[in-house]
């Protein structure tokens, strides 16, 4: 089926070309980073994880959200989602690949990365993250591809793939739970030391992922002959609505515990993010934008007319993707590291090379997504789905 990715319209080639350009630029800066060291980024001894690990965290969520189309179809026999499960799975493949690449570009010594396998260390959450992410990638490639191939040949998918599908359902929340545990078990990082970290990760994931899927479905409908379907999009919209409301609720749970208890270690990080400390508050406007508009988006999604009109739905979904990204892709990392364990405020902002490398990784992810979606959509067009 991969040959479908080789023949396409002009627009398809143009998109692939643009993505390749992003990848090339990213690769160029990555080579520079390999040569010089991670000092090329804005990270430092106080904020020792930055943009890369933040993108990893955000994209694990996008990947996990594939379960939101897989679960209703396979466990509740919600037939409508049968049309789009493959879109969810291929989105997961692209996202998890980006996650793994973001870990690699963040390593000081990528040449030694297989030490994680050579010296397996079960007490490290990173070891488990490596396992769950790779397994999830494998599951989604196999399931997505095999089921699509069966669809192309208009036969039932082979029986052996069913257990893998059932396994992939609990596996999805597990990848985001393990990723939350990377942070939530560290003593002395008050911002992360919260039991609601994993639930919050999941709620924002199940909002942002399906929101992205809605946008992708609308694009697929606009530019191809395959229509993912209005009912499908509306059901996804309901999932997004519940998830984003829960996410806002979890945020305020966090705020209550931190500010009613008045424990300084925990308050300081929120103060830095939303108010600034000692005049340092680079993230303040971003964080306010994030929480205010996330709340507004949640309220908008509750209104049936907003949800049912696909233009306002698309705009609200865009807002949800943006605000959850700011929360996880900007605030989460820096907020955890500032102030540092000695209660000093050293701020962080990504450098240009860091941004270009990030864009390069996104380029790879979107190239994979484009190619896989091209294959899936061509199959769907062929069988006249």
């Amino acid at each position, binding site marked *: 089926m991969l040959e479908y990715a080789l023949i396409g319209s002009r627009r398809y080639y143009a998109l692939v070309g643009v993505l390749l350009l992003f990848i090339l630029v990213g690769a160029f800066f990555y080579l520079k980073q390999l040569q010089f*060291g991670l000092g090329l980024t804005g990270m430092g001894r106080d904020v020792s994880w930055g943009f890369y690990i933040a993108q990893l965290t955000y994209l694990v969520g996008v990947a996990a959200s594939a379960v939101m189309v897989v679960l209703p179809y396979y466990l509740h026999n919600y037939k409508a989602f049968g049309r789009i499960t493959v879109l969810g799975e291929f989105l997961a493949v692209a996202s998890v690949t980006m996650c793994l690449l973001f870990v690699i570009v963040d390593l*000081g010594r990528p040449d*030694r990365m297989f030490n994680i396998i050579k010296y397996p*260390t079960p*007490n490290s959450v990173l070891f488990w993250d490596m396992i769950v992410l790779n397994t999830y990638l494998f599951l989604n490639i196999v399931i997505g591809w095999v089921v699509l191939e069966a669809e192309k040949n208009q036969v039932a998918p082979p029986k052996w793939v069913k257990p893998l599908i059932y396994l992939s359902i609990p596996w999805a929340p597990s990848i985001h739970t393990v990723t939350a545990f990377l942070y939530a078990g560290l003593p002395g990082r008050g911002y992360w030391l919260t039991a609601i970290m994993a639930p919050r990760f999941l709620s924002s994931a199940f909002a942002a992922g399906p929101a992205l899927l809605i946008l992708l479905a609308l694009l697929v409908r606009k530019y191809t002959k395959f229509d993912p379907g209005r009912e499908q999009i509306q059901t996804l919209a309901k999932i997004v609505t519940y998830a984003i409301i829960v996410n806002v609720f979890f945020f305020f749970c966090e705020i209550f515990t931190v500010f009613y208890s008045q424990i300084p270690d925990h308050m300081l990080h929120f103060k830095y993010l939303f108010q600034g400390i000692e005049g340092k508050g680079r993230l303040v406007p971003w964080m306010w934008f994030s929480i205010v508009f996330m709340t507004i988006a949640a309220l908008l999604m509750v209104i049936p007319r907003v949800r049912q009109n696909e233009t306002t739905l698309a705009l609200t979904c865009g807002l949800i993707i943006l605000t959850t990204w700011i929360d996880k892709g900007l605030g989460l990392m820096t907020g955890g590291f500032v102030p540092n*364990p*000695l209660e000093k405020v050293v701020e962080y902002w990504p450098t240009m090379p860091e941004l270009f490398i990030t864009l390069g990784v996104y380029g790879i992810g979107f190239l994979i997504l484009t190619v896989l979606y091209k294959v899936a959509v061509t199959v769907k067009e062929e069988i006249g789905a």
Partner: protein
Amino acid sequence: MGINRREFIKLAGLSTLFGLGGKAAWELLRPGQLEAALTAAPKPLTAKRWAMVVDMRKLDEATAKRCIEVCHRIHNVPNFAKPKNPKDAVSPEEQVRWEVKWIWLEHFHNAFPGMDQPHMAERLQHMNFLLLCNHCDNPPCVRVCPTKATFRREDGVVMMDMHRCIGCRYCMAGCPFSARSFNWRDPRPFVQQEYPDYPTREPGMVEKCDFCAKLLAKGQMPACVVESQGALIFGDLADETSPVREALKNNFAIRRKPFLGTNPQVYYIV
């Protein structure tokens, strides 16, 4: 025509025999000397649980700075404020970000956040505390490391294997004391004079104080302890008669963030 397989094995075998005969050759030429050289190596210092007591009453700032100086010199720790070649100079902001430090000074409220009080003894408020890796009994850095590149020795020293470290910096996120440094770039242009007894580093791995494990193995005390003129006390916490136990028995000592349960093994007498 070269040698065949059989001849090669013969030759290899013979040269191995000669290789093994190296010690015998020494015995013939200079009897006894090799043994003498081997036994002359001093006995390593050992303990069940190494610990340090910093007696802040005895530690003046000049001495503290000398401790830092000697530690960083013998461990080839770079000073980004002082490049060997002026053309390598880096901005003050980069100096902060890239800083590598094994032992350093900090005010009370930074060293012991949450423990400072509105009306503290003035002496304490301006005092600079000497900080280093706490060599925790229950080290979070060891718990999170995905390759066991950082590990806890039987005697309590938390060590770094810089040849195994992949540079993921999980340990830096895990350490509640900021005791770990990463090589964000090549540190060598900022090492004033290379100290031959300790390796210099490349970009990409984490490092920290190792209680001078190399010196302990040679039977010597950690460099900062030697330099401190009695203000730093180092010894076996498991041994009731050790100087650290003596110091802790007779004085009230505090530790950094003991409530986190990492069980730090550097004690401060204030």
